[in-house]
């Protein structure tokens, strides 16, 4: 729709401008703060134009925080979580949409219900499992073995031997596996892929059957290439989500060489607890550094969205 409405145009542009300022101003202030030296940044009010200590602040905070290692960790975790989520989401949605089996809807709703159980809600049991990954299996097995004795105990027959199976301990704390696995399960992704798969015409499935392709071939050759834009969207969201994870890495890592960049941020602001005046310029520099990778991912992936939207190959 092409219209000429100068008044409306003016107000929409104004609204846009206000929005941009609201979103960008805090980031600008962070940037300005990260460019001053320690004295200037603590002047009240802080100057609103950039200073001259930019490079110095960034190099200092990079080395002091050992961001090199932390970035590598963050990258491994965020990439692992993203790939894992996409793989699991695509496979579960494939099963739910393209196959008919009993209890299919039950499985779908089970996955769907986990939307309401984010990691923060189930963090204690998840930690227990991470501390000993085989403990749930051990618990189930012991329960099964001891069920007869328990039942007999109820009707008064006692004295049967109790089994206490002990599986070897498998500890996921302080490991990439422990950082990644609990974040991988995804109902959002499954749902997203399901909605997309439902729009794939049934004839395409049938055509590939006639061409002799089995389900896996169809998944790999047809379905995944068609889901490219979907995957890009999910990857963007999930990368940012994983990069910004704070609580879970804080719990499962204790060794400094396993911590992530986001966790490190909290150490940059010593605060009153440590009795020091906070080093705001370096803290702000660190913040901007940590913000950069998700920002780049969003910018880079945005290109994909647009291409996916305007190319007519759907």
């Amino acid at each position: 729709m092409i219209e000429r409405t100068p008044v409306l145009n003016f107000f929409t542009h104004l609204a846009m401008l206000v929005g941009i300022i609201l979103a960008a101003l805090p980031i600008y202030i962070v940037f300005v703060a990260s460019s001053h030296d320690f004295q200037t940044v603590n002047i009240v009010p802080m100057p609103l134009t950039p200073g001259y200590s930019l490079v110095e602040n960034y190099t200092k905070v990079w080395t002091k925080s050992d961001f090199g290692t932390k970035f590598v960790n963050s990258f491994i975790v965020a990439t692992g979580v993203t790939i894992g989520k996409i793989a699991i989401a695509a496979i579960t949605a494939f099963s739910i949409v393209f196959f008919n089996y009993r209890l299919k809807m039950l499985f779908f709703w089970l996955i769907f219900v986990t939307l309401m159980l984010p990691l923060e809600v189930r963090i204690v049991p998840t930690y227990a499992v991470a501390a000993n990954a085989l403990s749930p299996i051990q618990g189930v097995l012991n329960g099964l073995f001891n069920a007869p004795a328990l039942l007999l105990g109820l009707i008064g027959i006692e004295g049967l031997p109790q089994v206490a199976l002990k599986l070897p301990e498998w500890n996921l704390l302080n490991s990439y596996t422990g950082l990644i696995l609990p974040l991988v399960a995804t109902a959002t992704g499954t749902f997203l892929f399901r909605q997309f798969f439902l729009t794939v015409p049934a004839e395409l499935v049938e055509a590939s059957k006639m061409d002799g392709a089995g389900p896996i071939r169809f998944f790999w050759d047809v379905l995944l290439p068609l889901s490219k834009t979907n995957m890009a969207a999910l990857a963007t969201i999930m990368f940012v989500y994983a990069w910004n994870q704070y609580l879970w890495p804080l719990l499962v890592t204790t060794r400094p060489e396993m911590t992530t960049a986001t966790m490190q941020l909290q150490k940059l602001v010593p605060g009153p607890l440590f009795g020091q005046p906070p080093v705001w310029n370096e803290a702000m520099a660190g913040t901007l550094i940590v913000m950069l990778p998700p920002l780049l991912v969003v910018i880079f992936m945005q290109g994909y969205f647009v291409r996916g939207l305007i190319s007519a190959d759907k």
Partner: protein
Amino acid sequence: MADIAISNVTKSYGKTAVIHGVDLAIRDGEFVVILGPSGCGKSTLLRMIAGLEEISGGTIAIAGEAVNEKEPRERGCAMVFQNYALYPHFSVAENIGYALKVAGVAKAERMRRVREVAKSVGLEEYLDRKPSQLSGGQRQRVAMGRAMIREPKVFLFDEPLSNLDAKLRVQMRLEIRKLHQRLGATSVFVTHDQVEAMTLADRIVVMNAGKIEQIGTPSEIYDRPETLFVAGFISSPPMNLLEVTIPVRGEAHAGDIVISTPAFLAGKPGAAAMIGVRPEHLEISAQGRFSLQAEFVEKLGSVQLVHGSFAGRDFILQCPATQPVAAGQRLLFDIPAAAMHAFDPATGARIPKVQPAGRQNEPVAA
């Protein structure tokens, strides 16, 4: 060698039965067209042959082998879909060659055959394009090429021309016919367009409501419709039908109009019958015994159709375009006895022509 034997095949979705016991024998190399109104189960039958739909009852055998339990890929059929179902992310070459890729044919050999097939369907210049960059007719050709490359024993077509414009449809019809003559593969073609059926088929199978009404060559179906449904469905304009009773030997009454009946109906005084006669077989002449007031005139180029009502029913006369006819005008015509078809109104079955002299049934056209 790929004849198809369909015996007593039924299909139901849950409790709703959509195909009720179909028997059909398709000979090797034959071009069979399944014709019927929308929703009669044509696609369902075709998809059961392809293996895309489970067979609820009965058996389908291809080349003498029951295929009920076989996967589509094991049946040796190729299918052309109504909306082409091309892979949108593959180029034309990849679309055509995908079956060979799945079958593990080496790349060089695959490309050679893709080029060969593309040449025969006139797509050589488009091999690198995506389906979205092709016209409807070109997409249709890609779909045909994709079916051809596997050198299937059986070609299945599900209304492949219905998305094309009229001119292209005629052209593609010819191409499909030529393709069949060249490859000689058994072909089953589903359509609801009777012109398509008439021009393409070796034999036509007319279906209605999940049942086969008649199987025959196009001329058999046109000359000797076996049921009232076939009589009404085949040919455009449709056959004129009159509800009559036969009080006296040799004549039938439709309201207060008396029609002299053909010899074979003579022996049935007291019976009710449906008499059918095609508009193109009515004889318009100044000496005609019947008259019809033209309500409106439809000009179709070389002929014109005069619509009116006769004996209380809609009635159509066909006359050459050269004859001046205006709405409101009265036309006189005769109904030649030889062109009459008669049906039992209760069952819809054709009343066979029995010679009054006690001779055998009319010879069935070969």
